[in-house]
């Protein structure tokens, strides 16, 4: 799964370069996130601004990533598009993540 990983303002920022997090790539997503997280101890911002489709398998993979990072590191979500936001809201999983409208807001929000 294609991602770009960089360090910014003490966060590890992982930007997905894919339009879909679905059942076909859910395992790949989890592996990719583990790899992106392995060298470091920063909190992770997942930039989802390019993702336009997520299903329940993709949602489960994001939850699994948060559980894998806990308790020492958190997973922060940024840039959710409307269809992604809808799945989080419908399943009420929006209540368990820190969610920011943009990557910029996530970076500054944490330092406000």
């Amino acid at each position, binding site marked *: 799964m294609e991602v770009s990983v960089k360090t910014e303002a003490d966060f590890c920022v992982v930007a997905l370069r894919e339009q*879909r997090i*679905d*059942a*076909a790539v859910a395992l790949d997503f989890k592996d990719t996130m583990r790899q992106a997280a392995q060298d470091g101890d920063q909190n992770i911002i997942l930039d989802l601004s390019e993702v336009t*489709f997520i*299903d*329940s*398998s993709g*949602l*489960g*993979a994001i*939850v*699994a990533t*948060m*559980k894998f990072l*806990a*308790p020492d590191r958190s997973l922060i979500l940024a840039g959710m598009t*409307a*269809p992604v936001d*809808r*799945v989080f809201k*419908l*399943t*009420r*999983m929006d*209540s*368990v993540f820190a969610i920011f409208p943009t990557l910029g807001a996530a970076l500054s929000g944490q330092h406000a």
Partner: protein
Amino acid sequence: MHKQGTMTRSTALSPETSPFPFDIRFNSSKAAVRQALAEVRQELAPLGLDIEELQIVELVLAEALNNIVEHAYAQPVPDDMITICGDHRANGLHFRIVDRGGAMPDGKPPLGNTQPISAEIEDLPEGGFGWFLIRDLAKDVCYRRIGTENRLDLRLAIALDWRE
């Protein structure tokens, strides 16, 4: 009673140009589900649905199809095909999904209750959202086991009032 698909259509979709009803057949794999969803989007394109409506159709069908791939075909049957039939009627989009995999446990689909959201991160659910989403977004959900076939019917109350 007219045959489905030859009923009088609105001026926007004449019988000649209407894609309905359509059938899409594909084998049981997650990659094939992705492809099938792309074909459904193409079939629905003439309706000019709002992007939101199209996303909801795709989400509901994705959940139903992924369930079939993961559960009905937990033991793969290479030559079996899954079929989606789509039709457009006055009360929305109707889909019938047929497969020949294993039956639903107890012969009925999950209730799809909301997953309890735990305060403890390690207890958060990673699955079980699929049937909740189907039941939340679709109407007239009906599952039947007929012989060796699973038949799931559902309706999405969108693209209404398309007939004059």
